């Protein structure tokens, strides 16, 4: 009987504490959300305004960043050597069109008054301007290929000079076996790079923004080729550096062993 009473007392105590906590929580909730319907509505309106402002700011930020990137792309285009003037103008025109579209979208987002329209407009920064994604990848790839071609040409010129120097050393009876191996490797790397450069540029030349994202696999393949070209050119560069250093050593050894002529008295 006593145990039963004790359990009952405990349960009663627990229930009183729980009820008090729940009532307190509800009171706090009421205080927070406003006790009257008008207060609740005012708070809801304020929340929606804050949410819209937050979304608007995020939209501005994304648009501004895209416009800045596209403007820099136009600058980058101007530095590309392998583009024809027609290609250059065509790309610039498309990028400018993209910038204009984003600028207009920014103005629309600024004027939006309801959350649903604002959400749709902010989403369209991505969905409606996929051309941005294409150009960011395409122009960067083309710029890198353009650079790689210049690097290849420079290395090829240096390769010719090194070949001349090694032949001279060979004629002078110096041991050039190691240099010949390095030069051969340099040549192989340059040839591999050239093959991939031609293939990659051919693959990229037919792509357009209107074909995106269906042509994304070609962009990805172009990027993959570029990575191999990059590795080949770096390897050829290392070979060239080694050959130049070895040639200097040979030259030094040669000058050290050449007997100095005693001036005739």
């Amino acid at each position, binding site marked *: 009987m006593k145990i039963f009473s004790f359990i009952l007392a405990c349960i009663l105590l627990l229930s009183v504490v729980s009820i008090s906590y729940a009532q307190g929580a509800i009171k706090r909730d009421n205080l927070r959300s406003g006790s009257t319907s008008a207060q609740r509505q005012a708070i809801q309106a304020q929340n929606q305004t804050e949410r819209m402002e937050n979304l608007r700011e995020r*939209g501005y930020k994304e648009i501004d960043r895209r416009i800045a990137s596209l403007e820099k792309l136009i600058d980058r285009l101007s530095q590309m050597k392998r583009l024809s003037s027609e290609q250059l103008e065509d790309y610039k025109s498309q990028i400018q069109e993209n910038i204009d579209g984003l600028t207009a979208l920014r103005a629309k987002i600024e004027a939006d008054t309801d959350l649903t329209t604002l959400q749709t407009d902010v989403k369209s920064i991505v969905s409606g301007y996929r051309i941005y994604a294409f150009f960011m990848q395409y122009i960067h790839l083309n710029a890198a290929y353009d650079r790689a071609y210049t690097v290849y040409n420079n290395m090829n010129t240096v390769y010719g000079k090194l070949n001349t120097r090694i032949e001279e050393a060979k004629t002078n009876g110096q041991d050039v076996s190691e240099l010949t191996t390095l030069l051969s490797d340099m040549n192989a790397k340059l040839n591999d790079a050239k093959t991939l450069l031609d293939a990659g540029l051919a693959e990229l030349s037919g792509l357009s923004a209107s074909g995106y994202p269906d042509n994304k696999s070609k962009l990805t393949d172009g990027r993959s080729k570029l990575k191999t070209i990059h590795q080949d050119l770096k390897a050829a560069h290392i070979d060239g550096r080694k050959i130049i250093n070895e040639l200097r050593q040979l030259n030094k050894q040669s000058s050290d062993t050449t007997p100095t002529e005693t001036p005739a008295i």
Partner: protein
Amino acid sequence: MDPNQVQASPASQPVPVQSAPVQPVAQTPQPPIETPKGGNKKLILTLAVVLVAVLSLVGAGTYYLSSNSNNSAQTQSSQNTFTPTPTITSAPSEPEITSKGTSDNSLEEDAKVLDQNINNLNSDVSSVDSSFSDQQTDLN
């Protein structure tokens, strides 16, 4: 009357039997026997109290959880992450091999040009990687 005659004791006299009146026995009050009806009441009361306690706990817990989930939802909506759009640094001008000489000094100059070429190419390849990693963010 005969003096030897023993006088009968009054005890031997027949005593008229009188029936004493039955006094009512003062009974101590018995505790009321618990009827099955009273037990049910207690059981119902206990169950009600338990039910109230459980409901209160559930209510308080639900309120706590819902207020927490609202807070976390608000926090999440206000902290939408963005993948940074890759920025383009203006490309450095590309140095080219100009000299035609094959002397050590000339080759050293060529090597410096190639060093610069490779550095610029490294930068371009990084820009390509950034442009491909820019997965268009979902702006909801």
